[in-house]
């Protein structure tokens, strides 16, 4: 295979002299527009092991028609496509070039991206999209729109076959904005990446709304409020490092082997676990600290950290094996589930299911938050979607009930009924249809109404309910929880379970 490395071969002039010279000079002369740090090609180069980015169709230009039949060449038609090794594994990369017609998507641009997508799908490798584009190229009209549509169709085809990661390094507007949303994970550069269907000028013209670009489609908005993007990073280099980090957890393609690493001990000792979890089940704790006592190196690659933070989602390793994490976060909103949290979890679980990444679920959930606001947000639809994602996930599912697991939220958090391969509970767990105080309010309504001191009676009844109904051995006797284990035994139990499922036999 003839490969051209733009940075080392083309720009250094090691290719044959001749008719290629003009095209080569044009590519070499492309400016980097502020506040950008790296050129489109150097972004791709920075992703690849030893900087070896093998560009495909570098010399295929597009053309812009000018007055009197003249045409202006658009170098590479504004996109660099190619592949390189990342951690020694082939990875496809498309990098938009804002220096050429604002990175706008024309028909040649689209042909090239589609070519890359087909190449990656056929050969089973992840696709990285570095987005920096004003959207469909306006003067090309329907051909530009058709090009965008063809890219989307391949995004959808790729979804079932290879991981896709989008990085937003500049504008990603109009039709271009749909492509990242069709991929698995979207990383945005703070203050630089902008993702919107309609830019501020058009919004102003259409509705009169005067809106700052950051408030319309900045990294903060999309990682905190809309959930459209999953990671906000400080600069381009951190974005690229994040791509490399994220890929380290993922197989090359659906059905591919998980990338193992040498096992590492957790950051904190498991003995610290007992102190991290308050005895009283109504007192919050930080689940990140718990995870840091259990996973390799104590590190979790968190995604959507600021969107619906009552649940933590991300990737980590256990005994060197990549795992997905879905964890209640009692420190934020008590670890409740709601419509947004359910969307976040469903998306994460579906991804793990498609690519066979074991899903570990860490439960301390008081329930789905009740009320009219949530019903109006279609919490039933989104909650059902979370059930659907778990029940349908084609990956090992391991669930640890840390403390509370009540009601529909218990079922939704990776329960045995939805197909968990292994389930454990820590000794102080409470598993029931609802919390003890609420339960006795219904079960003992008459008794409470007649009591002289209803508060004292309620407390006594709740304690009795807690002791008789919610304790985890009842779940063990029912065969719904496999075992009651101490927190410090959890890492060993999960490691053994993964080995039982054929993973991590180093």
């Amino acid at each position, binding site marked *: 295979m003839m490969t051209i490395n733009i940075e080392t071969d083309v720009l250094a002039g090691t290719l044959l002299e001749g008719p290629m010279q003009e095209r080569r000079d044009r590519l070499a002369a492309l400016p980097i527009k502020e506040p950008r740090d790296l050129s489109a090609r150097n972004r791709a180069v920075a992703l690849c092991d030893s900087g070896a980015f093998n560009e495909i169709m570098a010399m295929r230009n597009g053309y812009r028609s000018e007055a009197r039949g003249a045409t202006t060449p658009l170098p590479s038609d504004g996109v660099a496509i190619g592949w390189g090794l990342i951690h020694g594994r082939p990875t496809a990369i498309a990098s938009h070039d804002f220096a050429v017609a604002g990175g706008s998507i024309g028909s040649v641009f689209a042909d090239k991206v589609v070519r890359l997508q087909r190449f990656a799908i056929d050969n089973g490798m992840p696709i990285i999209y570095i987005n920096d584009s004003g959207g469909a190229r306006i003067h090309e009209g329907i051909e530009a729109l058709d090009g965008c549509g063809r890219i989307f169709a391949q995004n959808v085809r790729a979804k079932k076959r290879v991981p896709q990661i989008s990085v937003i390094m500049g504008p990603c507007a109009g039709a271009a904005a749909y492509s990242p949303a069709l991929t698995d994970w979207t990383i945005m550069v703070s203050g630089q990446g902008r993702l919107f269907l309609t830019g501020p000028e058009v919004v102003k013209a259409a509705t009169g709304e005067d809106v700052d670009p950051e408030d319309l489609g900045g990294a903060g908005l999309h990682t905190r409020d809309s959930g459209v993007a999953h990671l906000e990073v400080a600069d381009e280099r951190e974005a690229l490092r994040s791509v490399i980090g994220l890929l380290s957890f993922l197989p090359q393609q659906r059905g591919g082997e998980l990338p193992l690493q040498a096992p590492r001990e957790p950051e904190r000792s498991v003995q610290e676990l007992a102190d991290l979890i308050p005895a009283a089940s*109504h007192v919050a704790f930080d689940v990140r600290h718990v995870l840091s006592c259990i996973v390799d190196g104590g590190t979790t690659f968190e995604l959507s950290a600021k969107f619906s933070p009552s649940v933590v989602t991300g990737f980590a390793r256990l005994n060197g094996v990549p795992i997905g994490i879905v964890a209640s976060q009692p420190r934020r909103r008590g670890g409740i589930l709601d419509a947004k949290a359910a969307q976040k979890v469903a998306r994460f679980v579906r991804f793990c299911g498609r690519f066979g990444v074991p899903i570990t679920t860490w439960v301390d959930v008081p329930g789905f938050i009740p009320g009219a606001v949530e019903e109006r947000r279609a919490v039933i639809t989104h909650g059902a979607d979370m059930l659907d994602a778990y029940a349908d996930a084609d990956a090992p599912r391991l669930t640890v009930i840390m403390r509370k697991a009540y009601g529909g939220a218990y079922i939704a958090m990776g329960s045995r009924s939805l197909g968990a391969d292994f389930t454990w509970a820590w000794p102080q767990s409470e598993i029931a249809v609802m919390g003890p105080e609420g339960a006795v309010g219904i079960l003992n309504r008459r008794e409470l109404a007649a009591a002289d001191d209803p508060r004292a009676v309620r407390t006594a009844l709740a304690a009795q309910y807690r002791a008789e109904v919610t304790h985890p051995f009842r779940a063990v006797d029912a065969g719904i929880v496999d075992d009651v284990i101490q927190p410090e035994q959890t890492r060993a139990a999960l490691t053994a379970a993964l080995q039982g499922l054929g993973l991590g036999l180093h």
Partner: protein
Amino acid sequence: MSKQQEVRAELAGNVYKILVSVGDEVNKGDQLIVLESMKMEIPVIAPKAGTVTAVNTSADSVIAEGDVLVVMEVPTD
């Protein structure tokens, strides 16, 4: 330079405990208030380090999601 930072309730509930008063210096991640909701004690956390300039609620108050509970003065980035 400094700016005002509003700290809002992440969900509806009752104010269980107020842990800070006006003039207190707090670090990022410190608990400012504890809410009671969903039978849980839920901390309201300082998003940044700064000085408390107002506490807009009192113990046992019923608050709604999004209510401003505390105002802080924080250094601008």
